[in-house]
């Protein structure tokens, strides 16, 4: 296997020399610090973060064109999601810059509702987005390997590499699995269903089987997409236009801004009573209702058949018609994801104003997949029971590119740090949405596809999309995984905060707006801090804890909270159980 020309900067020499030594120790066989399986949004960010840290990094993907693929809606950001992208950007992540490079429509959501919940969101040209990710990845010493992992290699309680389908073997100190929905995914279109995806199915199944043997598989979830329309068959003139924001704001604060693309217009239409009648009449043919799909879908962003069933009294549901690219006639009708049969999709689409003559280029479908229980992971996204194995992205039960990418950063950065013998970089829910997500996932697990929302952040007034650098800059610098020019930009921003002119900036004004409320909330947080300090011994046997029901013991055991504060956020934990836990920890401490 060829060795990529890793150009190590002075500060990274130590790690690089280390990996050279390891390589020779393995008798000529290549030894990576971080091996990332899967080049989706999580995988790319994981590999990029590891490489920025200076780890010897490989990115394994089935096809080389997987990197930066937007498999679902062609947009990046949103409320909560946009916050994640901005935070990822502080750590020099790829997503923000790629989104800036590929944006063909910008909207700052929630403009009317206060800066803390403004949600930057762009429509991105698929082709340009992928090209940007490829370009940014190419600037980093990431070794790209095409192939398919079929089995994890393990020595005792530690992962040591993977075997590939072609018979070769990759050794690595750490492995990040970022394979998306690969665990037994099935695609549904009406009565048709098929195992998802790629050829070489056997191999995937073997890896999936191994993951199951580790006891990681949790439950089935479902997600869906709308049919893709041919934009040339849409009657745009009849539709309400949604222009791009006049101000060309950017996701990234990188000192070299991406060159933008021309901005397009989106349009808005609505379903009608006729649409709903067609869907109702065909309900029996939807796999969602015939019992074929068992997986749980999200309560938010439901399929159109779910909306019709659950909000039957509404006379219409909004649809955003989003172009997929500058050179692409495909249009993504956001709001009507469906798994209805093709003929039903065609007839209900044509009952929508402006879409009377619309051609469906690709039918919508539902994907049902298995995810792992993220409660088995530590805050660094490393499996608690198997050292060196990290999981990131949709496999952990999340939905969305942004959620996946942010996990990729956490897993890749920490895999690299662990390979270099350094302590983890952990994210706190008091200072970032990334911290909120990791804490939620590893503590509460998921019962439906996990999507970021501002409601999940109790420190919401502080966690704004506009102050990500102020919140995370110090931590990003300390992580040793940002470029020199990024580090300079972060330092400059942190210094600018003490400049009198800062008060007039957007960020400074938002700080001032929320200061009195934040001060009032501080008292509440202080109370939380006190219970945060009550540590729960990691070896506490909940079943032996007096006064704790078997059900509560099971919930606590699955989540393994580290503090009383964490325990209080585990779903279904009763006040009485907390009391028993509290006195139990006191006794254990005595």
């Amino acid at each position, binding site marked *: 296997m060829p060795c990529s020309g890793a150009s190590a900067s002075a500060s990274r020499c130590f790690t690089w020399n280390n990996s050279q030594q390891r390589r020779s120790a393995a008798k000529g066989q290549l030894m990576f610090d971080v091996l990332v399986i899967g080049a989706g949004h999580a995988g790319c960010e994981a590999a990029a973060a590891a490489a920025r840290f200076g780890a010897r990094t490989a990115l394994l993907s089935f096809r080389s064109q997987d990197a930066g693929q937007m498999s679902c809606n062609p*947009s990046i950001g949103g*409320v909560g999601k946009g916050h994640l992208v901005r935070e990822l950007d502080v750590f020099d992540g790829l997503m923000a810059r790629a989104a800036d490079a590929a944006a063909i429509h910008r909207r700052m959501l*929630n403009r009317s509702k206060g800066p803390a919940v403004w949600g930057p969101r762009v429509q991105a040209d698929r082709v340009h987005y992928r090209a940007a990710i490829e370009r940014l990845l190419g600037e980093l010493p990431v070794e790209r390997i095409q192939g398919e992992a079929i089995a994890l290699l393990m020595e005792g309680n530690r992962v040591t590499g993977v075997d590939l389908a072609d018979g070769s073997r990759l050794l690595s100190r750490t492995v990040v699995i970022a394979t998306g929905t690969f665990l037994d995914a099935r695609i549904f279109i009406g009565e048709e269903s098929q195992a998802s995806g790629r050829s070489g199915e056997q191999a995937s199944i073997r890896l999936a089987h191994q993951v199951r043997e580790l006891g990681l598989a949790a439950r089935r979830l479902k997600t869906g997409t709308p049919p893709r329309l041919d934009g040339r068959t849409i009657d745009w003139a009849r539709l309400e236009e949604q222009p791009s924001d006049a101000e060309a704001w950017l996701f990234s604060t990188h000192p070299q801004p991406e060159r933008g693309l021309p901005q397009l217009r989106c349009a808005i239409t609505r379903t009608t009573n006729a649409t709903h009648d067609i869907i109702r009449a065909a309900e029996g043919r939807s796999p969602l209702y015939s019992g074929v799909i068992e997986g749980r879908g999200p309560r*938010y962003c439901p399929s159109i058949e779910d909306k019709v069933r659950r909000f039957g009294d509404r006379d219409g549901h909004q649809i955003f018609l989003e172009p997929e690219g500058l050179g692409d006639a495909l249009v993504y009708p956001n709001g009507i994801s469906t798994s209805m049969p093709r003929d039903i999709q065609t007839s209900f689409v044509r009952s929508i104003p402006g879409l009377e003559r619309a051609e469906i280029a690709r039918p919508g479908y539902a994907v049902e997949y298995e995810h792992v229980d993220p409660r088995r992971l530590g805050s660094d996204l490393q499996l608690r029971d198997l050292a060196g194995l990290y999981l990131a992205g949709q496999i952990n039960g999340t939905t969305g590119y942004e959620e996946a990418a942010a996990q990729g950063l956490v897993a890749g950065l920490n895999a690299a740090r662990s390979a270099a013998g350094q302590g983890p970089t952990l994210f706190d829910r008091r200072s970032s949405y990334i911290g909120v997500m990791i804490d939620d996932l590893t503590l509460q697990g998921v019962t439906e596809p996990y999507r970021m929302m501002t409601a999940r952040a109790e420190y919401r007034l502080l966690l704004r999309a506009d102050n990500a650098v102020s919140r995370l800059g110090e931590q990003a610098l300390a992580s040793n995984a940002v470029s020199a020019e990024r580090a300079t930009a972060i330092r400059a921003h942190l210094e600018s905060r003490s400049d009198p002119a800062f008060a007039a900036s957007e960020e400074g004004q938002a700080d001032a707006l929320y200061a009195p409320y934040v001060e*009032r909330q501080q008292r509440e947080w202080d*109370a939380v801090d006190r219970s945060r300090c009550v540590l729960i011994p990691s070896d506490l046997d909940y079943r032996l804890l007096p006064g704790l029901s078997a059900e509560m013991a099971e919930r606590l055991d699955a989540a393994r909270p580290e503090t009383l504060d964490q325990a209080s956020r585990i779903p279904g934990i009763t*006040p009485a159980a*907390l009391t028993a836990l*509290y006195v*139990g920890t006191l006794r254990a401490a005595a």
Partner: protein
Amino acid sequence: MTSDTIYALSSGALPAAIAIVRLSGLRAEAAAERLAGPLPEPRQASLRRLRAADGSVIDEALLLRFAAPTTATGEPLIEFHLHGGRAVVARLLAELSAMDGLREASPGEFTRRALINGRLDLTQAEGLADLLGAETEWQRRAAMESAGGNLRRLVEEWRKQLVQLSAEAEAAIDYVGDEDETAIDLAGLWERSAELVRLWRGCLAQPPAELLEQGVRIVLAGPPNSGKSSLFNALVGSERAIVTPIAGTTRDLIKARLDLDGMPVTLVDTAGLHDSSDEVERIGISRAEQALAEADILLWLGDPDDAPNLASRLLVHARADQRGPAPAGSIATSVLAKGGLDELRSRLGQQVRNLLPPVDRASLNRRQRQALGEAADILSLTPGDDLLLMAEALRQALASLDRLTGRQSTEEVLDALFGRFCLGK
């Protein structure tokens, strides 16, 4: 924490007919054996001679042994039923304190151990604290009601409404952009939260639960020699206050706890109010004025025109047998002729009943009032035109309610709870 074996006098104030000293912990049985010789079977009372380390006899006592874990604390438990003299009990406690690994229990520690060992849950412990403190029928009923959860039900109902409001606000913030924009009626949301605040303010305006615990303070006041102490004694039913015809006999405050128709009251006799040159009497008068300021109900025995203007007061025309008919609005009483006392008691009873929190309605203690007051303040201080700040306020109010019920800040709630137990419980 549970490594120590603890002991304490678990029965009431000494001297008494019987005093019960309890021992709980792993060394309880060994300690009892050193004092009493071989122990009886569990749960069988046995008369034993307790001997000190020097061989002298402390007392002839009934000894009871309870085997873990089915004891009140979940640990090995011993009870000594002693003769209730101060010296007897002091001697036994001194003997116990000299033994290795034994120490005097801190207040509430027996109950805390019961909780730790799963013999009680928090709500039971809270109910127990109230029941132990109950002196009158009114208090007992209120404790039972509160243990039955009427406050919890009320808070749950408020919580449900808050959660609904909060969910609507959160939906309007988070569900935008890729599906139906959630329209929200901000003014309607604000009005509904204001309605909740009105409910809470109403609840806060009710008498605090502490009044039930401490009893309603009824203060007798008036000029010297107006018959306050005689009336005090008559109401208490014993000669607690010295009564002489000499003006200024009562110098200090004299207090007595009374059960008035099942309701807890504290009756306070005070020095007669006048300009005095006697220094001791002046101190007494200043104390009387202080007591007046803290009175829940005033019994005024002086000239109706001089009566302090208190919301709850009764004008009493004492010594009516000597002074003639009462002015309008005053209750005529005569201790000697036993006249008017029943009427006074019944009028007092009415006033006390109005002041006490109703037994069948949830009353809030200080901690609970603080949490609910916080929730009300947060919501009423929030500008009604900013959805995000509304949403934040709703979340904070929810957190305050959770503090009220103990869903949050478990530690704080537990500390507050155990602080209410006295030694030996």
